[in-house]
């Protein structure tokens, strides 16, 4: 296959991939009309054909032109806009969905040149911040571990430059901007390890800012989390202020 969309491993990625495929078909049809019209005109009306001094500005012609354009506009652009609004507001950017689910896994992400830091709150449910340390936070470097079939809510920021958090297999992406907190949420439906990439040029090693998304069965995830936070507590160092880059979770970050 010359080119294909990545395999979708999420509950809602089809919203994007379906819209992409539908858009591609519409684009192909529009382009097909253009090419057929162009080729027919050039084959039929060559130098040997006497030109007609048609100015195309009679009311009937103008209305025809505007009418054709209006129909294409309403069908193609109209569906594009309504699809986009319903899918983003209803699901993809609707953070009320993960907020309402008691099982939602919340992760804070700190992007920096050139790696992804992931932070889970641990059993106490509180993220370790500069002012309020919490010793059981699970920190992972370039590895995001999540349970299958569970909402995962990410909040992301950057300490240095603009990055782009990108998981091809979720068809999801967001810019990550220092000074602000961005959000994403998804529900992985397939087990396995998938790539996380940086989408926004962030300096010399932009191309190496690669992480992994690991989707585990629910029980296995719980076991991993218990073990990881136990290890975290053992290794916790309250002197290390830099390690407490988390922030108090807000459902509506700035």
């Amino acid at each position, binding site marked *: 296959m010359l080119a294909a969309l990545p395999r979708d491993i999420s509950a809602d990625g089809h919203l994007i991939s379906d819209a992409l495929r539908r858009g591609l078909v519409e684009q192909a049809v529009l382009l097909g009309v253009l090419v057929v019209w162009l080729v027919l005109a050039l084959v039929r009306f060559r130098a040997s054909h006497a030109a007609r001094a048609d100015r195309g500005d009679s009311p009937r012609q103008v209305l025809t032109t505007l009418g054709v354009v209006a129909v294409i506009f309403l069908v193609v652009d109209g569906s594009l*806009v309504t699809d986009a609004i319903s899918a983003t507001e209803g699901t993809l950017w609707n953070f009320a969905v993960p907020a309402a689910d008691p099982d939602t896994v919340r992760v804070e992400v700190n992007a920096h040149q050139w790696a992804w830091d992931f932070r889970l709150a641990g059993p106490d449910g509180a993220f370790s911040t500069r002012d309020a340390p919490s010793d059981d936070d699970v920190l992972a470097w370039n590895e995001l571990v999540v349970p299958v079939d569970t909402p995962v809510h990410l909040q992301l920021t950057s300490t240095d430059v603009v990055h782009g958090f990108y998981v091809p297999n979720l068809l999801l992406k967001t810019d990550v901007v220092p000074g602000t907190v961005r959000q994403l949420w998804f529900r992985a439906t397939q087990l396995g390890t998938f790539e996380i990439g940086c989408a926004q040029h962030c300096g010399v090693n932009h191309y190496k800012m690669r992480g992994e998304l690991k989707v585990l069965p629910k029980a296995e995830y719980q076991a991993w989390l218990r073990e990881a936070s136990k290890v975290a507590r053992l290794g916790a160092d309250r002197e290390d202020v830099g390690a407490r880059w988390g922030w108090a979770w807000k459902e509506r970050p700035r």
Partner: protein
Amino acid sequence: MSAPQGFLRRYVFSVDHKVIAKQFLFAGLVFLALGGFLAMLIRWQWAYPGRPVPGLHTLLAASDGAITPPVYQSIFTLHGLTMIFWAITPVLIGAFGNFLLPLQIGARDMAFPRLNAWSFWTFLLSGVLLLASFFAQLGTSGAGWTGYPPLSGPTGSPGVGQTLVVAAVFVTGVSTIMGGINYVTTVIRLRAPGMTWFRLPVTVWGLFLTSVLNVLFVPVLGSAALLLLLDRLFGTAFFAAGAAVGPRGGDPILYQHLFWIFGHPEVYILILPVWGVVSDLLSFFGRKPAYWYRGTVYALIAVTVLSALVYGHHMYQVGLHPLLGKAFMFFTVLISFPGMVLVMNWLSTLWRGSNRFTPPMLFALGTVFVFGVGGVTGLSLAGLLTDIYLHDTLWVVGHFHLTMAAAVFLGSMAALHFWFPKMFGRELNSRLATVHFGFTFVLLCLVFFGQLLAGWSGQQRRLADPYQYDFIKPLLPLNKATSHAAFLLAASQLLFVWNFFHSLFRGKKAEANPWNVGTLEWTHAPSPPPHHNFDTIPTVVRGPHEFSTDEAKARGTDWLPQAEGP
């Protein structure tokens, strides 16, 4: 008015718009070659990542000719900047704007001839700054052509190279604004008697609206560049944020707003003159009036008005307020309406014409096709939903190269092949030009279709070695094939270089009006026109597209001049 004597006054420090046009043309073509060379290096890296580039062992001595990541990021940064500000802008606006505006509206020169010369020399100064950045310690800019802070700030990009590049952008902006004011004034004030707004060639409309946008929005780019320079040189923090500045930071998103308020009109700045040229040429070589001329003009005006209301689609993923995102999406799709009117008018102009496949016509037809592809592939980027996936992938790169690179390049070639006889008084070899068109058109399509395919598969932009990612590894054969098409594309430009220079000195002498069209530069001035353009200023009596009308047939011809008499 007599021409100044002496080589320097006549050819170097000239205030003649035709000479300045040629200065812009030659300077722009040199930068085009540089930008093209950088593009080839990018393509090399995607086909053979890390392998030494043949012939670059001395230029990249530290790595024995291989493109290292720091060199790579400078290459794609300077490729974008060079092409947009130092190649397309001078060729399309500097050269054709200067040459055509006075000649097509029936004026003896620009409204402000000295400002015109200043505009060129300021442009040249900015080019020197740009080239100087290559020799700076730590190298030239590597922050991408968009120069997003904090990466382009003092912590993200230390070193004087980035400062020089931002300064160069600022200075070239000054040059563009000087040109823009001059062009706008010229079209408003210096039209010949009878040259009403709706008798202007569409080319003039395109250049005029481009200049309006330049005057309005290049200053915004200037403000962004200036604030960035303050951040870099004087420790301000307008655009700084994150650990390096702590709580006293500014807002990196503010820069993106300023940049794209300019940046989106900029893509129309670059395409409007091409749309104008194509609208005229399809009529000229279809020997038929331009279909719904006023509709075309209204469409160009609508695009101009909307151009700054759509810029937020570059920022869908930075966390805009949802209402703002929707508003930008609405305006973005709205701009496709005038775009479609334009394409419909072009196709209807060809219909029932008497189409002559001269080199300028072929390039114009090629422009229609690649612009069509570029236009429809933009739909997926206009939608908030589909952009989530396509944002920052090669789909974006393919889309804007089809519109801004392929369409603008083919459109500029159409213009150059059409007006070459008028500019230089000699004809290009049309058989060679046809072959050059064939190679260029097919290969441009292959190269940018290849990028669309890689983007569809999810490949991000600006990766020094894309194959660090497992999901991109299968795309190596595709990228390699695309690169080979790009190398052939570059090689086939030698046909043009040879044709250009050979015709310049040895070409057949051109007649005053070899194409039999009615606009003033062809009907009322010899090839090339004298210093003062017109012996007497013509009085215009009709529009630019009077082909195959009954009145023309009654005169035993198929075209009528815009002005009667000598």
